[in-house]
């Protein structure tokens, strides 16, 4: 019978050498005790970060203009969320990898309409207020074209928007109910009521913060705070966390791709980087079966360091 040739990167030689005593239970126990002590030591010395979550109330009080500008963006469909595409809406086709548009293919499964969900519904949940009621009635009764004209006019004056005595002022004219809606939403946000309105839309109990998180992320307040904490994508933020902590250092390669061309300037970077990391993960997984790649360890000879006692005789 013909025997198969020995393949050094696939087959292992039969070991016929000496054996040494090995107490696996003792080893495991010592490891748990040592690691446990090290964990307690590190936790005692360094603790862990816990920056409080920001609220829409805190945001709108700290920077009412940014909040009002973002709310206007939600109304005229210019925020990140409003223009996102799947899984939130159909405003954009989403990222593509050649002909593949995976997000679009998966469809809108978490519907978010920024006008309805971030502005109209929260305002409609407020106690009766004559000017607000009139504004909402005017808005709901207007054609889409009329709504667009009002919002467009208000947006033209948004760069000169001011905040004084609890009022957002915009010099633009022919803006219909928009100034009232923006002011009432800003007041609602500053009171903390908008935080609640966005999470209780589906009932009393909730564990889903999709809407308030999307709204907050549409403004610049969160990003400015993140920048101070070196958390932006351009600051390798994906692997960082607040303070001087190691964060998710194991994501360094994932983060790395975002820093280099062509990914750093690509509008499809998220999908491209995911594809690259998916491919690299697959290569790592299937390494034992890939000729050439599986020979690298034998050729590098780092194993001689590991087994130096064995090779030294």
């Amino acid at each position: 019978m013909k025997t198969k040739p020995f393949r050094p990167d696939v087959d292992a030689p039969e070991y016929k050498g000496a054996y040494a005593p090995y107490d696996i239970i003792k080893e495991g126990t010592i490891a748990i005790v040592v690691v446990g002590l090290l964990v307690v030591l590190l936790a005692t010395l360094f603790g862990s970060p816990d920056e409080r979550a920001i609220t829409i109330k805190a945001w709108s009080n700290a920077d009412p203009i940014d909040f009002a500008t973002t709310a206007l963006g939600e109304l005229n469909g210019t925020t990140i969320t409003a223009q996102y595409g799947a899984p939130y809406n159909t405003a954009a086709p989403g990222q593509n990898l050649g002909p593949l548009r995976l997000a679009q293919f998966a469809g809108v499964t978490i519907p978010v309409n920024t006008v309805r969900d971030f502005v109209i519904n929260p305002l409609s949940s407020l106690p009766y207020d004559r000017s607000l009621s009139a504004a909402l009635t005017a808005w709901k009764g207007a054609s889409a074209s009329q709504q667009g004209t009002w919002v467009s006019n208000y947006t033209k004056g948004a760069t000169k928007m001011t905040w004084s005595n609890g009022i957002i002022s915009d010099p633009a004219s022919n803006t219909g109910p928009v100034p009232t809606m923006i002011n009432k939403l800003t007041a609602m946000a500053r009171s903390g009521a908008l935080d609640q309105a966005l999470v209780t839309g589906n009932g009393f109990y909730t564990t889903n913060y999709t809407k308030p998180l999307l709204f907050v992320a549409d403004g610049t307040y969160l990003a400015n705070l993140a920048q101070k904490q070196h958390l932006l994508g351009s600051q390798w933020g994906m692997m960082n966390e607040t303070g001087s902590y190691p964060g998710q250092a194991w994501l360094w390669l994932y983060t790395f791709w975002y820093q280099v061309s062509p990914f750093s300037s690509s509008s499809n970077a998220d999908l491209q980087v995911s594809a690259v990391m998916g491919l690299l993960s697959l290569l790592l997984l299937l390494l034992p079966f890939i000729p050439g790649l599986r020979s690298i360890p034998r050729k590098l000879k780092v194993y001689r360091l590991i087994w130096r006692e064995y090779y030294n005789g």
Partner: protein
Amino acid sequence: MSTAEIEKQWTTRLRKRAHGHLPPEKLLPDTQPAYVSSWIYVFGVTTIAALVMVILSGIILALRGPQWWHSSSVGHFVNSTHLWSVEIFFFAMIVHLWGKFFMAAWRGGRSLTWVTGVVTFLTSVGTAFTGYVSQTNFDSQWISTQAKDGINATGVGSIFNVLNLGQMLMWHIVLLPLAAVILTAVHVLLVRVKGVVPPFEETNGASK
């Protein structure tokens, strides 16, 4: 019932098969090949020890709920032990992975051991990520709102919503840890079944 019938039982066959592949002296060995004498071997058991600490600290956090650690100094300390257990876990696991790469530890019918190790690593990355977005603090706000773009772009975001705290917490404390622990157990059993990979055979200094 005849002996032949007993021999055909699923239970009997499973027991015999398990015993054949993993007799007690292989499952709990008292000797090992003399070549297993490098510091690199420490990182496998260190990874498991860190996993034990991750689970223990996670269980304590689970006892009092996801927001306890924000308002309690004891809770914050337990959270700190959870964090540092995770950091040690990943450090040890990555060194272990590199060590096994340099040894080409898949040789001699050990490819499934390698595969389960890599899948455990990837599962652990997912477990840690869902933990980061479940912290209910600024970090979780920022990380989730940034990470959503990468996940949404692949289409996975349609069913895996990183902005949904309840969903992420369930994945973090139930589904992914369960997968990680099962995978780790399978990985360790495979190591015990196949043993530690022997060194490359060399002739005149060249590996064969």
